């Protein structure tokens, strides 16, 4: 669908984008995720034709669009600032690209009404942009970008100008519309939660280059670079002893590891190799679990602090060697674990099927 090959962009002395490659499948939702200055918006603008690349190529299907004007690319783009035309009503904004394409009145009317119904703004179609709320404006912008059936939809930080609650509900709307229409979508965001929730695949970018490409699960649980690990969520780096390596039912490599006498299974990651008999991996705070002290081969640990985050509570837990780890648990159960309490600590890999952990532990405990 969209093929970007060795894309580079240089502004005077700044290499904004460095050897960027991406192949998108039809209907796929891919997100470029990175901090400001990572080059993600520049990539998006080059795909839209608003910026010309220094080198490299962009293909839309079989067509080389690298040097085409934005008008000739037929790509839908939603801006962070909505960019609705202030002198046109919601209806006129959505109809505009169809007028440009010289479609007949009846077709335009049918298509615009269909889209207004899809975004739930039929009763506000005659309002000017300044009479609409931020969320409504962004929905109109989305409908306008989709009105001419573009094969590719680009979203430039589409939700970041909205407040948290509207952002949350619009995320769901966005995903639903994308699924319903099956339009291939490339989004730019710096919001990791948004990226994890919406994307089929995520491209993590830093300093103009791609750090990692993968599914939300890959990016979250198997960050391949220190940058990705630091940028997305939090991790506890631990060094564990490798007991053995087994194959999962679908052929993936799984390590059985021991850490503080606790034996657990961990899905192998191509990029992290054991150093001799030990391996350093990053454990997400929510991959730890509490048990009663001494339960099921757990580590005996002490809760030294608690931070209430709303639905989740973060515990700072001290291990027998006096180091600490961060553990997240649902706030609903946090009352059971006061500061100073002794607990049993377990690690489970959320990527492994339920029940697999016990099996692996049993296998390691009773080698036959």
């Amino acid at each position: 669908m969209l093929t970007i090959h060795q894309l580079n962009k240089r502004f005077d002395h700044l290499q904004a984008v460095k050897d960027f490659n991406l192949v998108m499948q039809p209907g796929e939702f891919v997100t470029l995720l990175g901090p400001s200055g990572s080059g993600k918006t520049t990539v998006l603008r080059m795909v839209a034709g608003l910026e010309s690349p220094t080198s490299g190529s962009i293909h839309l299907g079989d067509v080389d669009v690298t040097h085409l004007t934005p008008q000739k690319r037929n790509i839908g783009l939603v801006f962070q600032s909505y960019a609705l035309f202030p002198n046109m009503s919601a209806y006129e904004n959505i109809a505009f690209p169809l007028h440009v394409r010289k479609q007949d009145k009846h077709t335009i009317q049918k298509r615009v009404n269909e889209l207004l119904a899809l975004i739930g703004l039929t009763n506000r179609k005659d309002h000017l942009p300044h009479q609409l709320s931020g969320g409504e404006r962004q929905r109109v912008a989305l409908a306008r970008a989709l009105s001419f059936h573009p094969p590719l939809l680009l979203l430039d930080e589409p939700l970041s100008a909205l407040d948290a609650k509207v952002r949350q509900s619009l995320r769901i709307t966005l995903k639903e519309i994308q699924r319903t229409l099956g339009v291939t979508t490339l989004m730019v965001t710096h919001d990791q939660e948004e990226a994890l929730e919406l994307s089929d695949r995520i491209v993590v970018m830093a300093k103009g280059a791609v750090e990692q490409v993968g599914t939300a699960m890959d990016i979250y649980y198997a960050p391949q670079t220190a940058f990705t690990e630091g940028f997305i969520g939090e991790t506890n780096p631990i060094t564990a002893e490798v007991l053995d390596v087994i194959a999962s039912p679908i052929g993936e490599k799984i390590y059985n590891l021991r850490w503080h006498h606790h034996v657990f299974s961990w899905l192998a990651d191509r990029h992290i190799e054991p150093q001799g008999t030990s391996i350093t991996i990053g454990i997400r705070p929510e991959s730890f679990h509490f048990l009663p002290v001494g339960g099921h081969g757990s580590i005996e640990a002490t809760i030294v602090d608690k931070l209430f985050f709303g639905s989740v509570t973060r515990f700072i837990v001290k291990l027998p060697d006096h180091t600490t780890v961060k553990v997240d648990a649902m706030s609903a159960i946090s009352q059971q674990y006061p500061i100073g309490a002794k607990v049993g600590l377990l690690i489970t890999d959320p990527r492994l099927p339920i029940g697999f952990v016990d099996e692996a532990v049993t296998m390691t405990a009773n080698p036959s």
Partner: protein
Amino acid sequence: MRLGRLLFLPIFAFLLIFAIIPAFGVLSSSLTGTHGLSFTFYRQTFSQQYYNAFWTTTWLSLTSSVLAAIWGFVIAFALVRTSMTVLQRIITALSSTMANFAGLPLAVAFMATLGTSGILTLFLQQYLHVDIVAMGFNLAAFSGLFVAYLSFLTPLAVILMLPAVSSLHQEWEEAMYTLGASFFLYLRKVAVPVLLPSMIGTLGLLFANAFSTYVTSYELAGSSINLVPILIGYMVNGNVSMNLGLGDALSMEEMIVLGVSISFYFFAQRKSLLHAREGRSANAT
């Protein structure tokens, strides 16, 4: 709040002493005849000579301010879009200076360049064989005043248009392109409609400015053109015939014209969409 209002006192006092009280003075003397209240002076202003003066002044002011507004828009639009910041700064500074360069110095400058034996007139005649005097250009007539008015109205238009033009969002233009529209369609469908209230407002101010121009027109044309401010000058100074009451009646009529054109400006400002960004609360989805 109260202290804030007190700070406006000097301005109100200034307006009262130098604008409002004199205006009432003009009004009362224009309505005072030998036997008390009288409309004689106003009746006199409806004669052919004064009708012609109003017509010439309006036509000169309208044509010069329309052209200045269009030209000003084009320059402001180019200034906002250029990446040459030095040029941008030079032209903005030059516009501020030029907009205030009027009166006697401007008249002298024009006589020295475009007068019958002005440098530019002679240069065109000798080197390019273009005789602008023979072509009908006369600094002391409509054509000359038209050019002179443009020289200060255009920079004024640039200064007045710049804030509005620079608040056109770059994203509007980019959105137009990604939706398949050309630059001209962007101008026609978004830039010009959005800026229209500012353009009308600017036009109102330019017209008022041109209509009330006195020193420049008097020094350049004197009695060879029939303009309202020049006539008022004659009545008040007693150059030809002193008639304070008639001068005051003409002044009142000119004030009405200025009031109408300035109210265009305020009306247009209120209609501007550029300042109507904040709509309903963002939570109300």
